[in-house]
């Protein structure tokens, strides 16, 4: 159940931005989920790039983007993952005409300038260092696409 701090700040479930968080580490998935939920986001987690693509409607054998539930306002992905890296996932998203508008944030525990440059050049919105804190996640709100249900002229801000 979503908790509300004041009547002006209540976001109905449908109005919360939906974030897809991809990380092979269970600890980090739990952490990012909590961080995002605390910032009034709806979160779906995926343990690898393949699962993430399936959720987005780009899995093998899928050829249409599923509307409705799968609508995602931000993808946040770890860089170092076995199989498909976060960079490879970023590329696939940006190559898709349906999904390329979704902002993608890459996170990594390693501060490697060439890696950062590569991701930003490929279209990543931002590159963040792990471990993530609440202040990092609050910044992410500004990268998210418009909510699917506009708020009748009121400015809806999370906590």
């Amino acid at each position, binding site marked *: 159940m979503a*908790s509300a701090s004041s009547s002006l700040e209540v976001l109905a479930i449908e109005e919360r931005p939906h974030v897809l968080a991809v990380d092979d*580490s269970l*600890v*980090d998935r*739990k*952490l990012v989920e909590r961080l995002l939920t605390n910032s009034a986001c709806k979160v779906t987690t995926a343990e690898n790039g393949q699962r993430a693509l399936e959720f987005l409607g780009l899995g093998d054998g899928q050829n249409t983007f599923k509307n409705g539930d799968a609508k995602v306002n931000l993808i946040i992905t770890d860089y*170092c993952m076995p199989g498909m890296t976060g960079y490879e996932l970023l590329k696939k998203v940006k190559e898709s005409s349906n999904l390329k508008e979704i902002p993608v944030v890459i996170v990594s525990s390693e501060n490697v300038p060439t890696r950062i440059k590569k991701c930003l050049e490929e279209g990543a919105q931002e590159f963040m260092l*792990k*471990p993530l804190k*609440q202040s990092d996640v609050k910044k992410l709100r500004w990268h998210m696409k418009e909510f699917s249900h506009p708020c009748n002229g009121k400015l809806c801000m999370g906590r």
Partner: protein
Amino acid sequence: MDAIVQLQRQFVDYTTSLYRDGFLDDQFTQLQKLQDESNPDFVVEVVNLFFEDSEKLLNNLATALQQQIVDYKQVDAHVHQFKGSSSSIGAQRVKNACVAFRNYCEERDPEGCVRCLQQLKREHYLMKSKLETLFRLEQQILAAGGSVPMMT
């Protein structure tokens, strides 16, 4: 009331010592900030996930280092994962042990790696027992009807 105050003092002293001695860093504080009435067990849950994960990693590391021909890339991958998760929960000394370990992987130094694994196991064990003590203190405070002091 005295019992609660004493337990709270013990908790504060113990927590302070964990930070002072480098067992925990700011990331642990960040975890605690994420805990609230709607998620009262968040820290314990994350920490438990960490220890489940890390037991497996330690076993995998021991196996990898016992091979005739050690696959240092594989060893490094395990240590990298360990470093990541220990960093995420604020287990500073465990994380530092991982950093040292990775250096020996890069050097492809088998004895160095074995020593590092022993050190990592030691730090891991220490972290586990200290967090268990910390959580026990929290439970005692709550059981006595008190509230757990917020460490800022």
